[in-house]
Every structure is written in C-alpha cells, then in structure tokens.
C-alpha cells in the first residue's frame, strides 16, 4: 500500500474540516468503547487474563524461532505446504505463482491487514487474476477504490448514502436506501463468486504451534467460505502470530472479540489444520501458508518490540481522542490510531511517518484498553526521542527545545525568565485568560487551540510564599 503518512498534518486538517467524515466519526463514536466496557465485565478476572495474555505474547516472541519450527513440522505433517518469505514483493510473487501454477482465474479473499501492507490485490490483478474482497466493509472499499479507515471496520468512514450510490453504480441495480437491503444485495452479488472461485486467500489471527493450525475469526461467515469452498486455500500470516498451544488460543479469544466489537466471541472461529483429508465431504485440495517477515524481525530486535504483541483488535484506535476526531485515513498507511503511530514508523521508516508519534495526547487510554498491555505512549515517546536524534523534527522546534534546555539548566536565569513570562503571559491573556496566538514556533501550536494564560506568578514564587506564611 502507498504510504502517505508524511502528509499527516495536512490530511488531519482536511478530515477535521470535512463534514461527512465528522458525521461518520460522530456516528461511530463511543459505540465500540461502550460495548467493550460491558463485555469485559463478563470476566471477573479480566485484569489477570490480560496480564497472562501479555505474558503469553512475550513468551511467544522470546521463543519464536522454536515455535515457528514446531508449527512448521506439525503443519507439514498435516499436509500444509509452507512458504517462508522475507519481503512484500516475495509474498505477492509467491501468491501469484501458486495461482498461475494452478490455473486460477478467480480469487475470493477474506480480510487481511497483511494483504493491505503488501498491496496483494493490485499485484494479483496486474497478474490477470480476478480478486474479490468478501468482508462487507472490504468489499465496499474495494468497489470504491479506497483504503480501510479502521482495522476491523474498514468502511466506517462511508455513510449509508455513499454506499447506496456506490452499489447502484457498480451493481447496475436500482438504488437502495436501507442498510439491511444493501447488506443482502452484497450477499447476493458475492454468493456466486464464493461458489465458483478457484482460490481463497485469508489472513491468520493466529498460528498454533502445538497443532500446526491456522485460525481466523469472522462475523460474516466469509472466512468459512473462503477456507472451505475453493480448491486451493492460501493463508498469509506474519511470523509474530505464532502462539504455543490451543489453551493459549482460548486465553486470547476471551480478549479479542471483547476488546474489538464488545462481543463475547466472534461469530465464527475456524481452526484449520491441513487440506481436505481422505473421505472429507469438503475443503480445499491444497492448503498453503505463507509465513511472512516484512520487518517483524527488525522490530523484534528494536525497542519497539512490545508492539509485536498486538492481536489487531482495534481497541487502541477506538479509545484514542485523536483517532476519534480525524478517523483512520490521515495516518496514511494500513494501521491507524496509536498502534499505527508505532507500527507505521517501525515498518516503513520514521522518516516517512515523522508526525505519527506526535499524533497523541498521551492520555494513555490506548494502553489501558490494550488487551495485551502494549505500552503505546512509551513506544511513541521512544519514537519522539528518535526524531530528535535523527534531527527529523522541524528546525524551529529543535531550536526551541535547545533554547529551553539551555535555560532550564541555569536555575537563576530560569527563575527570572519564567517570572517574566508569567507576567507577560497574564497581560497577553487579557480578561479571558487565553492566549490566542503564540509567537515564533508557538504559532503552530495555537493555530487550532488557545493557550490558557499564566496567572501572573510562577509555581516557585507561590511555593516560596506559602512556605513563608
């Protein structure tokens, strides 16, 4: 997928001013948050489970080489064909090779964020393959030629009216204006494709080392269709998705749907181990799994390592005040919200996503909601440090920070300067006590908000006065 994260500030500004985007965000706002809060109450030891899940994910990462090898041994024994690839290009090529080697014309696809990372649909289409997204949200944005704005609700930025117009045009049918009717029209259109596709592509929520299985969850049933009906099934999975046992899977399943949509469990949870067996009534003749690195090992060896615990529930973005106001597209790549502000710089390079670690208020909601306790604000802070190290922050900001550092290390001068600033600030704040425009680099900060003006005395002055009295 094309990376447009460098334009974060500009696009975020556009999204704030875009009435339709703001309406869509207002519709969604809080729904997932409320549903999650209710769902986690079903677990009387939620925090204990959450801590255990974070530990399991860390344990997976610390022993990833062993679990991947165990997984491969068991998968191969069940008849799965395993491919290891290092780059996005290699993953796409492997998929196309499997398709062309088996005379595949049509592919049905269940949602995969990894597939979004590598732009697999466009790649296969260039190779002459017909690719159909089948998750309703993904289908909508594929028809609209757009990108997902949320990892579990990809079309959340589009209104019913947008979709009605889109479907009428693409399906060449009368325009519908009812959400259930629109959903069922998509069902009708996609059903024949499920039945006659040659190959199904899915992602994998997890790989289970103990059994050599892959696992996906869906609510729509498109995952079950994709893994059962076509004669070939290919699952693409990044290496960090490997977990040890089925018991670990149940532990994580208690958290995933509750953290994502507020369901106790996703509607369909499919654990797949190998292709169709002798005598089986259905299932693909071939089952391939492509194990993908694309930057994971680099992150594993970096200070951003805890981000690899992520189980892709979307809770961090649902709870993020920045995401709630600008939506997902401004982040400019596959993963929006706080996890995107860490993963995008980690996978595509900080220089291409320099503003993302700043797109946070550090309110810590994301890290509190994260089912595997990823310390997202800490990781963003580390990326901010790196911005300074690599001199990626704007020049004005860097000079300002240097001036402040110089001043702060000279206590007498600092006291004098802050006294002055407190008094000048009070006057500048006027009767309302608000500064509408800061000078120099501060002007950027006050472009979208007011600065509460100082009250005329510094903390140190007030403290000293209290101590005397």
């Amino acid at each position, binding site marked *: 997928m094309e990376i447009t994260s460098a334009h974060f500030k500009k696009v975020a500004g556009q999204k704030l001013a875009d009435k339709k985007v703001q309406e869509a965000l207002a519709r969604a706002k809080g729904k997932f948050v409320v549903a999650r809060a209710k769902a986690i109450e*079903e677990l009387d*030891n939620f925090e*204990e*489970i959450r801590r255990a*899940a974070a530990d*399991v994910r*860390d*344990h997976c*990462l*610390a*022993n*990833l*080489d*062993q*679990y991947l*090898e*165990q997984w491969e041994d068991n998968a191969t024994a*069940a008849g799965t064909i395993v491919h*290891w690839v*290092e780059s996005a290009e*290699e993953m796409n090529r492997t998929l196309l090779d499997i398709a062309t080697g088996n005379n595949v014309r049509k592919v049905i696809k269940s949602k995969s964020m990894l597939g979004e990372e590598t732009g697999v649909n466009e790649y296969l289409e260039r190779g002459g393959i017909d690719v159909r997204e089948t998750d*309703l949200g993904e289908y*909508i944005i594929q028809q609209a030629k757009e990108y997902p704005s949320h990892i579990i*609700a*990809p*079309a959340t930025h589009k209104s019913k009216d947008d979709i009605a117009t889109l479907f009428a045009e693409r399906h060449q049918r009368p325009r519908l204006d009812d*959400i*259930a009717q629109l*959903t*069922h029209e998509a*069902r009708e259109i*996609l*059903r*024949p494709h499920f039945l006659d596709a040659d190959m199904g592509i899915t992602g994998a929520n997890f790989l289970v080392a*103990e059994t050599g*299985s892959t696992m996906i969850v869906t*609510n*729509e049933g498109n995952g079950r*269709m994709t893994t059962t*009906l076509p004669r070939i099934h290919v699952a693409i999975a990044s290496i960090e998705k490997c977990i*040890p*046992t089925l*018991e670990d*899977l149940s532990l994580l399943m208690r958290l995933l749907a509750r953290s994502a949509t507020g369901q*106790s*469990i996703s*509607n*369909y949870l499919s654990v*797949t181990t190998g292709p169709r*067996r002798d005598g*089986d*009534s*259905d*299932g693909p003749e071939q089952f391939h799994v492509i*194990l993908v*690195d694309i930057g994971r*090992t*680099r992150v*594993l060896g970096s200070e951003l*390592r805890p981000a690899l615990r992520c189980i892709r529930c979307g809770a961090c973005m649902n709870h993020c005040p920045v995401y709630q106001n600008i939506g997902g597209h401004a982040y400019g790549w596959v993963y929006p919200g706080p996890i995107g502000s860490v993963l995008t710089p980690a996978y595509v390079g900080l220089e291409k996503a320099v503003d993302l670690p700043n797109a946070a208020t550090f309110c810590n909601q994301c890290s509190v909601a994260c089912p595997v306790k990823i310390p997202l604000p800490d990781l963003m802070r580390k990326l901010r440090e790196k911005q300074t190290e690599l001199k990626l922050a704007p020049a004005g900001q860097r000079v300002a920070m240097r001036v402040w550092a110089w001043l702060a290390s000279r206590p007498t001068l600092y006291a004098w300067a802050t006294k002055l600033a407190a008094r000048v600030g009070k006057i500048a704040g006027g009767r309302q006590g608000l500064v509408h425009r800061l000078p120099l680099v501060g002007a950027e900060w006050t472009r979208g908000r007011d600065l509460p003006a100082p009250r005329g005395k510094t903390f140190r002055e007030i403290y000293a006065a209290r101590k005397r009295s």
Partner: protein
Amino acid sequence: MSAKDNILARIRAANTAQAATGEVASTAAARLSAHPRGPMPTMTWDPLVQFRACSIAAASTIDEVRRRVELPAAVARYLRQNSLPMSGVCWPEFGDLDWLDAGLEMQSRPATGDDKVGVTGSFCALAETGTLVLLSGENQAATTSLLPETHIAVVNTGRVVVSMEDVWDLLRAETGGLPRQINFVSGPSRTADIEMTLVYGAHGPFRVHVLLLDE
C-alpha cells in the same frame, strides 16, 4: 541460505540483542506437550442454563427435544412457525429419521448454494459463549451449516461443556488429533459494516436454531 534460515537467524539475533533468549528448547517443547491452561474466569453457572442464555444472546433460538425420533417434528414446527421452506438437507446421521412423516423433504447430502435449510449435528457445544462446535469430516459437510439461509443444529445435552479449554480436552481424548477444520459457531452470520448497524445474514445463515436433545 533460504528465506527460512534468514528469518530464523534474525529472530535469534534479535532475541539475543534484546536479552530475551527465552527458555531452553526443552521448556518450549514441554509447554507444547503440557499445554497448561491460563487463568480462567469464574464459571460456576449450570452449563445448560448458561448455554441457553448465551445462545439467545448470540441471536440463536432454542428448543428442546426429549427423544431422537421427535427431531423431524421439532424441525417442522420451527420451519412452519417461521414460514420457512419445508425442504432441505441434513447430515447422514439424521438420514434414517422419518422426515416425510413430519411433512419435510429432507435429503441426506452436503448443501449446495440452492438449499434453504441445513440440519447438522455437533461435536459438542460450549456453554461459556453459547457456541456450537462443528468438525469437518466424511459425514459432516461444512456447507450444510454455512450455505443455507437456515441452520438447525442438534446438540446432545450431555455434550455441553463449560469452556473452550474443555473442547480441546474432549478433542484430544476422542479424536486423537485435529480434523481439517474446527468451526465454532455462535449464532447467525452478521455484519455491522454499514454505519455500525447490525444486520443478520451477511454471507452465512440468517438464523440458527438449536435443538437440545436429551436422549
């Protein structure tokens, strides 16, 4: 060096660099064979009561059947009450039942895209979340619970287990390995991808009806 060797070498180097070399090989292997359970939530409810409540919360409907021979009548009753087609397909395990007598035209074969009603059994059911557990296999077509608009599943009351961990134990004890696919089904297919409005019947069944069989 193959891609696999490169990736594994990078994982080892990264883990060494981060001083997270983990455990010795035998410990990881031991975890796989011991498969310890994580912390479990308190589950002191009666499994049948919980299964019923969670199934309804997941938008399934439930009926009870005392004896196996009464299954066709229960299926017919449900279909008639909901004005649904009186024909469909069933898993071979129910092929011997007298469907005609109940006014039903039921064929014992996997479902195609045209069948309107699918009757399946189940490996077991999960009380914790009101979930059906279906295995792939010779006489257990996955399509029967997936393609028709109505899925009717028979669950033996003695096969309602408490937690997902119990399902794994049951599988290990009874099948000695995993089938090609295990499907956990919790109510009808659904989506909320348009304006976060819940709609049933996204791609799979519009409705799931559970028959709790006491025999």
